[in-house]
């Protein structure tokens, strides 16, 4: 029982981390909350439906999801979003509008009913004496890999250093000759690509329908509010909030559990004194 609960906590944190990563990156550099994040999750999930329809290997859905996510984001950033950076409040409207448009386009093409996406892994494995979902273990591993990869990019690459400069002080970075417009563009594409990737990764756990992103967007939003712009903080927030949700659901009930993330986020925000 204890092992299972421990696994529940860490794998839930892993899933939350994967889902929130793209949102955090966009928030960090662009200082906007991408409310179309849920729609990008859905786009990724439908990539799984498409690859299943074509009879491709389920893992190819991940690549397809990422590519479509990036392409869609590139179009949106180029045509809409970059005109709105001076009006942060309007970006909320714009991204929420984008969310509605994308969800409706998916609905028009695929319909409202749930669709089938093949899963690569549906087995259970034995972990430390407990039988546990192999796919959740894989997700945990992927969360760690994604986290490390994004961290390496920000710390060890030119684009990462530039991005961090923009995060710290955009005007100064611009004054130093950094093309902040390009940094914003690439960050938004990467964030949306990661969101779509997360959507594709969710399909073995959940059913695919146009609005599947909404509940995940809410949780991811809370995590990012708490974590600020730090990857390490995001991991910590996923572990604390996700863990609390699992434990409250286990010892209390899932109805209370679903409130935990929101309530805890509010409490943490109230008492968090260090801004990152």
């Amino acid at each position, binding site marked *: 029982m204890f092992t299972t609960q421990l696994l529940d906590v860490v794998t839930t944190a892993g899933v939350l981390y994967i889902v929130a990563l793209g949102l955090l990156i966009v928030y960090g550099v662009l200082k906007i909350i991408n409310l179309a994040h849920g729609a990008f999750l859905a786009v990724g999930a439908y990539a799984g439906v498409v690859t299943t329809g074509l009879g491709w290997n389920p893992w190819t859905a991940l690549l397809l999801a990422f590519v479509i996510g990036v392409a869609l984001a590139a179009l949106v950033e180029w045509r809409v979003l970059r005109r709105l950076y001076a009006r942060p409040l309007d970006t909320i409207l714009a991204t929420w509008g984008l969310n509605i448009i994308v969800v409706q386009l998916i609905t028009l093409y695929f319909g*409202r009913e749930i669709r*089938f996406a093949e899963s690569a892994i549906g087995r259970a494995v034995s972990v430390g004496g407990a039988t546990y979902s192999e796919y*959740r273990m894989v997700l945990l591993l992927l969360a760690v890999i994604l986290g490390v990869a994004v961290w390496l990019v920000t710390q060890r690459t030119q684009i990462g250093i530039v991005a961090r400069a923009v995060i710290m002080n955009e005007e100064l970075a611009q004054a130093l000759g950094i093309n902040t417009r390009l940094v914003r563009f690439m960050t938004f594409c990467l964030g949306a690509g990661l969101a779509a990737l997360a959507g594709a990764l969710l399909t073995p756990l959940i*059913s695919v329908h146009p609005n*599947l992103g909404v*509940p995940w967007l809410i949780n991811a939003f809370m995590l990012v509010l708490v974590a600020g712009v730090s990857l390490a903080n995001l991991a910590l927030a996923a572990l604390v909030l996700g863990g609390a949700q699992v434990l409250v659901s286990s010892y209390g009930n899932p109805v209370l559990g*679903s409130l935990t993330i929101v309530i805890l986020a509010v409490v943490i925000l109230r008492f968090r004194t260090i801004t990152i």
Partner: protein
Amino acid sequence: MRKSWASHRPRLLATLLAVLALAMVPAGAVRSQDKKPIVIAVPVGLSGVNSVVAPAVVQSGELAVEEINAKGGVLGRKLQLVPLDDESGPAGAVKAFNTAIRQHKADTIITMETSAARNAGAPIAERAKTLFIYTSFYEGRACGKNLFINAWVPEQVVPPLIKFMTDEKKVKKWFAVGSDYAFGRGMIEAAKSTIKGAGGTILGEEYQPLQQSDWTAIISKIRAANPDGIIYSTSGGGPNIDFMKQFKAAGLTMPVGSLSIDELTAEAGGNAAEGVYYTGDYFTGLDNPENKKFLDAMKKKFGANLKTPNSLSEPEYDGIYAYAMAVEKAGTTDVDKLLQVLPMIVFKGPRGQVRMNKQHHAPLPVYLAQVQADGKTKVLKSFGLVDPGNQCPNLK
């Protein structure tokens, strides 16, 4: 200019009137020979949560109307189907019922709706003295003088499923799981009382919020409790597949009975729901001549646009036939006469024999089915006609 226009006006008017009069002659002539059609309004959730199933409901209705009209209609009058959008909720239902009754002068309302929409619409039909045949399975105990229901209530599908799992699958210790909303909880309550009656015990009972698609905590609780079998009732569609995917992935293998899955959902889930048992009054795989004829006619009429008929859409077909037979027998569309006649009408349709003679509800043929490895549903056996029990003790 003004003057010259005015001077022309009488002639213009006269010409217009003459043209109009001419145009109306043939139309009027036809009208007088042809009788007014019998209007059947179908307020249904073309938008909102029911929009997945609503097109199938309308198609069932269109087929019934076409078949009846092809045989000359009823009392020499054609049937006319008027689908309206109730937006899957009470506000839309109020609009749709008023439009049906005032604008379309509906003779009857025969439809599948959410319970909230039905509760909002039924009093409007009642006040307007319009017969309302409700064709959706629901939580039970909706009663009205003009309200008839030809689909199942929990008393008809829950006990057969529990009894089957108790007797055949030897499930004594149960775990009950539901979505946290009225229908989910209502179905689990019905299941619990049947389980207790059958001598079973309930090891645990858990409800998941509607928005939450991660079932991890509940699945861990199931594992810890180690029951012989599961009975679950989520909200319709996706949550069934969410739960079953995660249940399977966790390596749990005990038998599962579902009170919320349907054929379309099971099929969309692929192998996710493989092995799940469920009961219902209609399955496309029902092996009887009426169902075969119905499915062939649906395929022929709608071709590639066919929405797979299901337990929420097929009763619309039965409902329209029952109404047509009642009007034929009563010799009128007068609601007071129809209320007398309708309980006597027996329609043998794709589901089997349906007669709304039990307190405005219908004893129904109930079947046991199981989801196969490819997501398709296989009908395993029939329980015969199952009584709805005491739904409306104040009605006959």
